[in-house]
């Protein structure tokens, strides 16, 4: 039997000291309250310094040089890949493909897997709570190949309707794609259960981990997912790099994505032979400093423990939901606190999300206003846009108090 994971509580004061940006003010005397973590997270000093060190001390290209600098860069770059594999429980570094972001990972899949495995009339099953990144690449593919997209509906409580999921699996989709955690509702979906059902129906499973990997323990082998996509910049790492995890045998069957250097074994004027995974999906000089930064971001998260990260955010979101519901006119979308990650999207009676966000900004509070790249979710709940506050390891309940106080000011103005 596996031992229960030990969840130590995290020391937010210590953590905050590691993030230089959290010390700043947005205007004189107004400290920053950063609650836009679902859009992008802040970066600890260790990540910034690791990227700096690469440029200051061993900047060079990877994989091709014989000289000292290139050796050092290659080692650091590949060490990051191995760290990522370990972090998500993958069995090999060869299952970790570097992309620009989660969006590119989905595009890679649609382009490479989709075009070779799907033909006219095949079905893809997605959900209504997907980010546009896990909808639009499949829509583009559907238009090209005439494959059919189905969507699992969202129930009134903000969770996926699993009854309908089973029904739609009955149509025999070749691919099932769903998010592990909604970036609007915060809903955490039962990945293992959904994956098992999809496999029983003969489908390949791709999971959007952009909101889950940064915030909770994720294990691709335990959950048996076939593909997992996520982005570095939402998990303390830099922008410009993301990850596609894929099971080794599935990656082996897929043709390359982009053509160029690094993805080939040899090139002649009459043609080329393809490199092995993951390199066959990584044409051209990669984002080296960014990969190194992501590796260090993972070290940081690991030092806290993902169980503890999850526990802190559960505490934050429980408190935030409680307090938000106190404010007259505020309606929070999505499930109860215990079923969600650290995201609270809400509407405000009489005030447009842009106006809400603008007023909050005057108090130094950074939130996101709009549809958060998930228009279908908003359509499902009949709202045009929401204001979203999202939490991470460095947020405190007193920051939630500041949010609530500022919302009362919104109410004074607009209520």
């Amino acid at each position, binding site marked *: 039997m596996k031992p229960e994971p030990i969840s130590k509580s995290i020391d937010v004061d210590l953590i905050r000291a590691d993030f230089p940006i959290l010390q700043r003010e947005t205007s004189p005397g107004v400290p920053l309250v950063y609650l836009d973590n679902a859009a992008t997270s802040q970066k600890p000093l260790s990540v910034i310094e690791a990227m700096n060190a690469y440029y200051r001390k061993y900047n060079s290209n990877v994989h091709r040089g014989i000289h000292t600098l290139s050796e050092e860069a290659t080692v650091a770059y590949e060490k990051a890949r191995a760290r990522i594999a370990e972090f998500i429980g993958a069995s090999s570094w060869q299952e970790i493909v570097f992309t620009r972001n989660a969006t590119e990972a989905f595009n890679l899949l649609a382009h490479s897997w989709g075009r070779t495995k799907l033909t006219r009339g095949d079905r893809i099953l997605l959900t209504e709570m997907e980010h546009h990144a896990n909808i639009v690449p499949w829509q583009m593919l559907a238009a090209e190949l005439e494959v059919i997209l189905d969507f699992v509906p969202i129930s009134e409580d903000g969770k996926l309707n699993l009854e309908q999921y089973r029904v739609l699996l009955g149509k025999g989709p070749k691919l099932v794609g769903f998010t592990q955690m909604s970036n609007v509702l915060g809903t955490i979906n039962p990945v293992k259960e959904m994956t098992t059902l999809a496999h029983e129906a003969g489908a390949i499973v791709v999971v959007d981990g952009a909101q889950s990997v940064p915030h909770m323990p994720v294990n691709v082998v335990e959950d048996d997912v076939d593909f997992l996509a996520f982005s570095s910049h939402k998990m303390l790492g830099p922008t410009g790099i993301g990850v596609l995890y894929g099971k080794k045998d599935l990656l082996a069957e897929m043709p390359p994505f982009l053509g160029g250097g690094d993805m080939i074994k040899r090139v002649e004027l009459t043609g080329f032979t393809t490199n092995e995974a993951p390199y066959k999906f990584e044409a051209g000089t990669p984002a080296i400093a960014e990969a190194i930064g992501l590796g260090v971001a993972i070290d940081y998260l690991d030092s806290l423990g993902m169980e503890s990260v999850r526990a802190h955010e559960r505490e934050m979101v429980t408190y935030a939901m409680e307090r938000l519901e106190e404010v007259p006119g505020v309606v929070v979308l999505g499930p109860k606190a215990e079923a969600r990650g650290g995201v609270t999207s809400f509407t405000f009676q009489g005030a*447009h999300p842009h*106006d809400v966000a*603008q*007023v909050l900004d005057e108090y130094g509070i950074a939130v996101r206003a709009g549809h958060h790249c998930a228009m279908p979710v908003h359509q499902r709940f009949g709202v045009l*846009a929401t204001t979203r506050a999202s939490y991470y390891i460095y947020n405190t309940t007193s920051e939630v108090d500041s949010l609530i106080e500022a919302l009362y000011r919104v109410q004074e103005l*607009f209520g």
Partner: protein
Amino acid sequence: MDDLYREVIIDRYKNPHQRGELDPHDYSYKDDNPLCGDEIRIDLRVDGENKVTEAVFSGQGCAISIASADLLVESIVGKNLDEIKGLAKEDILELLGIELGPVRLKCALLSLKVLKAGVYGMESIEEELK
């Protein structure tokens, strides 16, 4: 902020003077800003000399976009179409009496975009009829 949300803006947002639709109208045009979910429609009636006799707006949006639409359509009553074509960003900001960053500027200018698209569109139809 208390600058941005001047009383006039909040007031126009909550109780716009010029909200409505005209049926029949000489001109009606609608556009949206899907990123924010803002949507503005403007209806006009003009006299024989292309002078605006009635102007109203409908739709939904944030305080800045609604207030600017309300102030804008109110300001064009009595103006002819050529004058409307000459309206610029600065005129909207002057009506609102505030300064805006690039993001919120889009909200403020949606109604001007709608108005101008419509006026130019109407003219091109007239050209066709000549």
